[in-house]
Each structure stands twice: as C-alpha cells, then as structure tokens.
C-alpha cells in the first residue's frame, strides 16, 4: 500500500466514494433510460449530449461496482490493521488539521472498535446495494452518484471526532437519501422523502444549537478533548449548570432518538422504508438507523453522563415500548416491506435498551445488534425487493405456497428471517441475548425491562414466522405465481455474503466482540461507571487490564444518583 494511502487510510476510506462520484459525474455520459420509451421525445437542453446506447449505463454500473468494491477492500485494511489491545482509544487518527481556525474547528477523524464495525457494515452494504441496483433502469448515472455520496457521508459520521465535522456529515447524509427515495421510490415517494428529510432535519437543528452552546461554554468542538479527564474543555464542561446540561442532553438526544428511531419518533420510518427503492431501504435500515445509536454511544453518553444516567428510566421505558409496539404493529401489516420496517422499530428498541443498561454486556450487545440488524434486515429488504421485482406487489396475500415454486428463494428467506427472529446459531441471537443479559444484570435497568423486552423476541417469532407461513408454505394460492422465477445468480451472489455473516457472527462472535472490548470499557469510564463492580458482569472475554484500572483511579468521582 503506498505510503500516502497508509498514512491517511481512514480519510481515503471516507473520501474514496466521493472521488468515484466525481469521476462518474464528469467522465461518464448520461445514458438513456432503458425502459421508458416515451422519454425519447424529451428535447434536450442546448448543447446536451444526445442519448447514448445502454452500454454506457452498463459502464456506469460496472464502474460503481468496482469502485465500491475498492472502498470495501480499503476498509478491510482497517480491519486487519486494527489494534484490539485494551486501553486503545482512537486509531487511524487523521488530524487534527485546522479547518476553520477562527472557531477552532478541526478536521479530526479516528475510529475505535465500534466505529470500525459500523464502517465495515457501511462499505459492505453499499457494495451489495450497488450490486443489487444493477436492475435500476431509470437515471442510472444520478442513482450511482447518490449512492456513492451517501457512502462518504455515512462513513464520515462514524469517524468524525469534531462536533462540527460530525454535524456536517450527519446532515449531508440526508441529501442523497432524499433523492434516492424521491426519484426512485414508489408511489408516495415525494411525501415520504419530504417527511424523512424534515423529520430528521427538525431533530438535528436543535442539536446544532447544542453543539454551538457547548463550544461557547468550553471553547472546543473536539469530542476527544471534551470527554478526556484533565483537559481544559472537560473541566469547563463539568462547570456547566446541571439544568443547562439537561437541555443540551435533550437537544442531542432528540436528534439521535429521531434517527434511531425511538418510539414515539418513529413515524417517519415506515413511510421512508416502504417508499424507498430496495437499496435505499437496505441502507436506511442497515446503516442510517445505526447513526442514531452511534450518536448516543459516542456523543450523548460521554458528554452528558449524569443526565444520561438520570434519564435512563425514560429511555429504557421508551425502548421497551418500541420493542413491543413495533412487534405488535408489524404483526398486522399486510405489506411485507412495512412489516420489515416495523420490525426495525422493535429491533432498534433492543439496541437502545442495551445502550442504556450501561453495562459492558449491554453496550457490546447493542453494537453487535446494530451490525446484526444491518445484516438480517438488509437481507430481508433485499429479498422483499426481489419479490417485488418479480410480481410488482409486496402484499402478503398476493403470495402463498410459493416455496414449491421458488425453493432456493424460500431457503434464503428463511435464513434471513431466523436471523431476525434471533434463533441460536444466527447473529441475531448473539446480539439480543447479550443485550438482555446486560439489561438483566444492570442496576439501572434490571429484570423488569429484560422481561418485557424478551416478549419482543417471542413476538418477532410470531410476526416473522406467520409471514413466512402465509407467503411460502401451504398450497399455491394464486395461479399466476406458478411462473415465478427462482433466485438468479446475481441475486444469490448478493445474498451469500450476508448468509455467511449471519452464521459467522452467530457461531464465532468472539472474533467480532474483541473489537468492542476496549471501546465499551472506555465508554463505561466516560460515563463514570468504570468502577461499578458487578459480580455477574463477567463476560469472560472482557478482561479489564491493569492499565485500565489504574487509569480508573484518576476518575473524578461523580455522585451517582
């Protein structure tokens, strides 16, 4: 690997997709739509290139696939070079470079194990989405450009260590997603796109005011300075009045809660997920929802530990309401995509539950479940999309007994579904079980929340298996379904890596959780729970090293409530 790339590896991972987008923009001609014959009549503006052959569309698709594969390969380099030894904070740090020197805004990025897994998920799902999106026939060039821009923005969110940089990436995510939903979505796409944009934007502008307030009070936008004990900024942060801190925490939390989304801020989600094109739904559910959870872990908790602990009961309650509510509503959905969308509300409830248990197990499980949900729900959305392409409907009642006709399809679907249901040996089980364990032992949450949340697991089995039953088993109910095609080779190629991950994480989770040991301990320390001795909190893989416990002594004691 050339030296310049190795030195700024993380920046390359972030900005490689945008370079690809620029190449697409300038080096490729706008291809003609392949299906819509009536567009031939469009009078092009002055000097505009005449419509070209479909070959140029294929060139765009192949280039984007190649480019996203390149990005994924580069992000794998992060995985292999990552140091999992405990005590490590941020790695692959680039910067801080002065960005807006007048306001001490820096370009400062770096990742810990949590970011690493989410970045890998991002590059991986984007690659698969590009592969899946070969069937996009309209406006291919714009579509691929938006996908690549989205990848850059999402990766940036998971790397930024400066609050302004973070906010810029955070908002920049909205723009390409808005277009993906609005241009290539289904019937109510405009409504869904606008609702998605406004809802998330409304949440995050108040966070911007909060960020600005933090800067005015502490003189720093750097999240590293703000949370590291001993730094001036941290001392100033501790000096802010508790009442104000509560407002600040609310401003940050609102943005993240909407993004997750937690009940009752979830109403944008079904609309956006259902109306988005398949790749859009995959990225929305797979990655963008995780940005909210990540925001809590990286910003809201370490910056406002006392407020987070005080507000924990509220968040835990909303999380379990989300789990049960999402599951119940999912059960009655006649539309498969909507069902999967509501199941996301339920699954993200688990993630939030894990985060607000403040235990190592809970936090580890929350991150792992974020990744798992990306994989299993991503796979479900892909497969619902494949079904929609075959029959142009997602109504459960339009299918029935199609297992005989499309056996391979049914097998893959069952794997995705069982992973979502959290069957042991699949990734879902590892994530949700770890979370429930963490919630159970935590003095903050406790067994009641764990008990209610576990009903969510039962409900998920109900709505998922019932759907499977209605769609795949029994006699074939519609004559027209007899001509359904089974999975094509391309589709299998998209799904096989996901299946591999389902079982890899499900059977050999230590390989993945080892990345989370150090960061989870760091977060616990930041929140001021590092010294909390819990006899049961003994995940055998999570070993607190000596350096860590020594560092723990310097912790300024914060009165626990």
């Amino acid at each position: 690997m050339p030296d310049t790339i190795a030195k700024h590896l993380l920046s390359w991972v972030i900005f490689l997709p945008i370079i690809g987008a620029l190449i697409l923009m300038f080096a490729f001609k706008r291809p003609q739509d392949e299906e819509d014959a009536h567009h031939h009549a469009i009078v092009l503006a002055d000097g505009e290139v005449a419509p070209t052959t479909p070959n140029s569309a294929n060139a765009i698709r192949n280039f984007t696939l190649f480019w996203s594969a390149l990005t994924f390969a580069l992000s794998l380099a992060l995985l292999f070079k990552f140091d999992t030894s405990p005590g490590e904070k941020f790695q692959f740090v680039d910067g801080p470079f002065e960005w807006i020197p007048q306001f001490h805004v820096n370009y400062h990025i770096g990742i810990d194990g949590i970011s690493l897994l989410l970045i890998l998920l991002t590059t991986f799902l984007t690659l698969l989405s590009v592969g899946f999106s070969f069937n996009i026939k309209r406006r291919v060039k714009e579509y691929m450009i938006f996908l690549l821009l989205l990848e850059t923005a999402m990766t940036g969110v998971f790397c930024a260590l400066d609050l302004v940089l973070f906010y810029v990436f955070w908002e920049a995510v909205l723009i390409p997603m808005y277009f993906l939903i609005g241009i290539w979505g289904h019937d109510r796409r405009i409504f869904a796109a606008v609702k998605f944009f406004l809802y998330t934007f409304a949440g995050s502008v108040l966070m911007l005011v909060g960020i600005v307030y933090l800067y005015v009070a502490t003189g720093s936008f750097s999240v590293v300075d703000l949370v590291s004990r001993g730094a001036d900024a941290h001392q100033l942060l501790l000096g802010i009045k508790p009442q104000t801190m509560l407002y600040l925490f609310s401003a940050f939390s609102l943005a993240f809660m909407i993004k997750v989304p937690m009940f009752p801020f979830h109403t944008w989600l079904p609309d956006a997920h259902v109306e988005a094109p398949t790749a859009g739904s995959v990225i929305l559910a797979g990655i963008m929802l995780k940005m909210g959870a990540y925001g809590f872990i990286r910003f809201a908790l370490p910056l406002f530990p006392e407020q987070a602990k005080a507000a924990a009961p509220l968040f835990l309650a909303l999380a379990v309401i989300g789990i049960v509510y999402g599951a119940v509503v999912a059960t009655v959905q006649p539309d498969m995509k909507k069902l999967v969308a509501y199941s996301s509300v339920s699954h993200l409830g688990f993630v939030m539950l894990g985060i607000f248990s403040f235990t190592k197990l809970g936090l580890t499980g929350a991150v792992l479940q974020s990744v798992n949900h990306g994989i299993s729900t991503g796979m479900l959305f892909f497969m619902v999309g494949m079904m929609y392409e075959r029959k142009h409907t997602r109504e459960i009642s339009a299918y029935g007994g199609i297992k005989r006709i499309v056996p391979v399809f049914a097998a893959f679907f069952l794997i995705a579904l069982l992973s979502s249901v959290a069957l042991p040996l699949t990734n879902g089980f590892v994530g949700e079980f770890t979370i429930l364990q963490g919630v159970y032992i935590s003095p903050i949450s406790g067994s009641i929340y764990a008990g209610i949340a576990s009903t969510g697991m039962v409900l998920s089995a109900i709505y998922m298996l019932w759907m499977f039953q209605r769609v795949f088993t029994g006699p074939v109910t519609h004559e027209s379904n007899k001509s359904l095609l089974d999975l094509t080779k391309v589709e299998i190629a998209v799904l096989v890596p996901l299946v591999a991950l389902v079982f890899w994480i499900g059977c050999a989770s230590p390989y993945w959780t080892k990345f989370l040991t150090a960061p989870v301990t760091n977060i616990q320390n930041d929140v001021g729970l590092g010294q909390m001795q819990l006899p049961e909190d003994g995940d055998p893989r999570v070993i607190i090293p000596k350096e860590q416990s020594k560092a723990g002594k310097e912790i300024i004691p914060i009165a626990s409530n």
Partner: protein
Amino acid sequence: MPAIDFSSVSVDTMMLMPVIVLWLTAAAIMLGNTFFWRDKRAWPAIISLVAIVVSALFCFNIRSTYADSMTTAFADSVKVDYVSFMGNIALLVTAFLSVLVAWTYLRNKGLNRSDYYVLLLLSVSGAMLMTDANDLIVLFLGLEILSFALYALVGFSTKEARSEEASIKYFLLGAFASAFLLYGISMVYGVMQSTNLDVIFAKASQMHGFSAMLLAGVGLLLVGLGFKAALIPFHQWTPDVYDGAPTSVTAFMAAAAKIGAFIALLRVFDALSPVKVAWLPAVQILAILSMIFGNILAISQTSLKRLLAYSSIAHAGYLMVAIASLPVSTTGHRLTGLASQSAIFYLFAYVFMTMGAFGVMVYLSPEGKEFQSIKDLKGLSRTNPVAAYGMMFFMLSLGGIPPTMGFMGKWQIFMSAVQNGQIMLSIVMALASVFAVYYYLRVVYMMTFEEPVGASPKAATSCAPVRSVLAISAFATIIFGLAPGWLISLLTVNNPAAK
C-alpha cells in the same frame, strides 16, 4: 494588490475612490451611449464590469493602507474599517454578478438599454456609501442614492404594467420609509446633539437610562431601515416588488439592498449598544416575526419569485438575530465581534445563493418568455441537469444545509447568538429553518422527482454571461461551505478584539 503608490492622495479622496470610479463610469456610459453605440452593443456591460473590478481593487488598497487604524474621513463622517471593506466587496460582487445576469436577461427581453447599467452602478454606489457611513446623514444620503436608482430599475420594463406598478408601489412606500428614517434621525439628533455615530456612541455610554425621545427616534430608525431590509411588519411591498420587477433587478435588489440596510443597522445599533436594553426587545420581536412568518408565508407560494421574496424576509430575520447579538461595546474598537462578522459572512452567502437562484431563473427564460411558476421547473433535472443541480445547491444553501455556504453562515449566527446570550432567538431560528427547508425542498423535488410536462423550460439564448454567474455562485457556495476560513479571515485579520 499591485503596489501603486497612492500615498500622496489624501485619505478623503482615497476613501471615495471606489465610489468615484463607479460614478465616472456611469457618466461615461451615458455619454458613450449617446454618441457611440446607442444600445446596440455589449459595451456598457463590459465597461461596467471593468469599473467594478477597478473599484474593488481600490477597496483592497484602502484596506491594506487604512483598515487596521480604523481611520475616518470627511470630518469623521465616513469610516474605514473591515466592515466597510467587506460591505463594499460584497456589494461589488453583487454588482458584478448582476451585470452578468442583466447582460443575458435584457437581451432576451428586448430591453437592452444602457441606462440600466448606469442606474445599477449608481445604486451600488449608494449602498457602498451606506456601508461606509459614520454619520446618520451620510447614511441617509447613501440610502436615497440606492433607493432612487432602484425605483427606476424596478420599473425598467416599461412595456409591462406589472413592472410599472411595482415601481410606483416601491417608490411610495419607500418615500414613507425614508421620511420615517429622517424623522428618526432628527429625534436621535435631538437627544444626542449630533448625527455622528462616534459621538452618539460616546453620549450613549454616559447615559443612565434612556428617554422616550431616544426610544421613539430609534424606533423610527428601525422602521426606515427595516423597510429596506424587508423585515416583518414592514415587508408588504416585498413580494409584489420582487414579482413585478424584471428578474435581473430582483436579483440585484434582493442582495444589494439587504447588504446596505444590514450594514447600516449594524453601525447604528452598535453605536447605540450602550443603551441596548432600549432597543433589544424591538429587534428581537422583528427578528422572530420575520423568521417565523417569512417562512410560513413562503410555503404557500407558487411563483418562484414570490417564494424567494418571502424567503428573503426570513433571511432578514436571521440577520436580525445577529443584530440582536451585538455586544454592549465599551471600547473604541467597534464592530469587531462575532455578531458583525457572522452577519457579514451571511450577507456574502446570501449574495451567492440569491444571485445563483435568480440566475437560474434568467437562464431558463428563453427569448420573450419569462419563467415564473415553480411548476415550470417540473422535470428540469431530466432536460437540463446542470441548471437543476445548480438550483438544488442554491436551495440547499438557502435552507442552511451542509456542506454549503448557507449552513456556515447560519452556524456562525448561531454562534454569535449563543455567545451573546440570545439563546431563545437561536432556538426560534433553528425551528424556523425547518419550515424553510420544506419550501426549498419543494423547489428541489419539482426539479428532480417530477417528470417533465409539456414544453420544458429551455435555456435562454446567448446565455454565456448568466452561465458564468451560475458557475461563480455555485463554486462560491460550495467552496465557502467547505472552507470558509479564508473569507472569515478577511473579516478578522489584525483584528485585536476578534476571537
């Protein structure tokens, strides 16, 4: 800057050079038109562009010579500091882009008369005087020079009743506003025994409490300047005039009048900052009304020009937040803080965003036909992706979404507001910008989500000048959105009080 030695020139003359260049050029264009080209050629536009560049060079020269020392000229009635420098540059950028827009627009509308450029240059010079003013009388003079040229420009399309009507409306209401302003000046004079802002500042610092007379005077000043800045409730003229005026005039007026008015507001309220308690509630109320109602009224608009008119009211509200954040200054070094800095940065952003947005409208108005409704934009990204995505950038920037210049401007206003304790205003501003995003997105989705219907808008003929406006504006919107540092440094270099 090229090192031309102007040391023998007195500071008074030097200070006026940027304006004098414009006046002489305006006169030259008038004469040249009478004797040589008679509205046939592009000469007036080219000469204007050259004059604007020369004027800007003078500004840079003045800045490097005098700005650090905060010199005043003409018996303290004109001030040379970073605010006047940046204000002048912003105005000259506006003028430069406006000339380019007009070049295409006038030809396509068959209005190619050179007096347009004469009026435009005079109008800019008036606004430049307003930014330099250190005396209320100079301020008033500047405002009148700006306004009279604008009244004529608004009615420039003499064939259209709309344009005439807008001109009359603007003139009548503008005359009222000027009277208010003048009355306010006289009342302030009555209390302070001076129209000089430095003296007013010194007197105000020694005041304990404030009199009803001063309150009335400041209120009337606020009415007069608020009219020019298009603040609610002095905004009634805005949609009609924006809609009726020729598009190139609307673009120019939106940016230039705003710069002039807001820098004047900055200067006046900074001088009055010792009695901030007296005027703060009024400024806050105007800011909140303009932000909320400007954005709400914009939502239901179907004409793009009217939409931009209401949006300009909302932007005036955002700028008022910066005015409300002016610190109570105690030193002689005034207007060096974050509030004025953020306001000026925002004005720059506003120039590029509005010129870009109106530029797209001109670009899409082919010969004899004018682009009006948002619906005309349907499917633009299919027929003219460059214009559509350019417009998208301007809309996102107006909405304050990163990574655009509009976001950086809004972010700085937030900073100044929070720093100076105006947290409530910053929250209102944040929520108001959610409404704003709704209608900006409506423009975006008309262009990108919808399919073209019927005859889609085609590009204007001979559109090279307006194309360059789009290129410059889009480039600036993105570059200053990604790297605003350089522009901010122009406002803060050698500036001891700045952060």
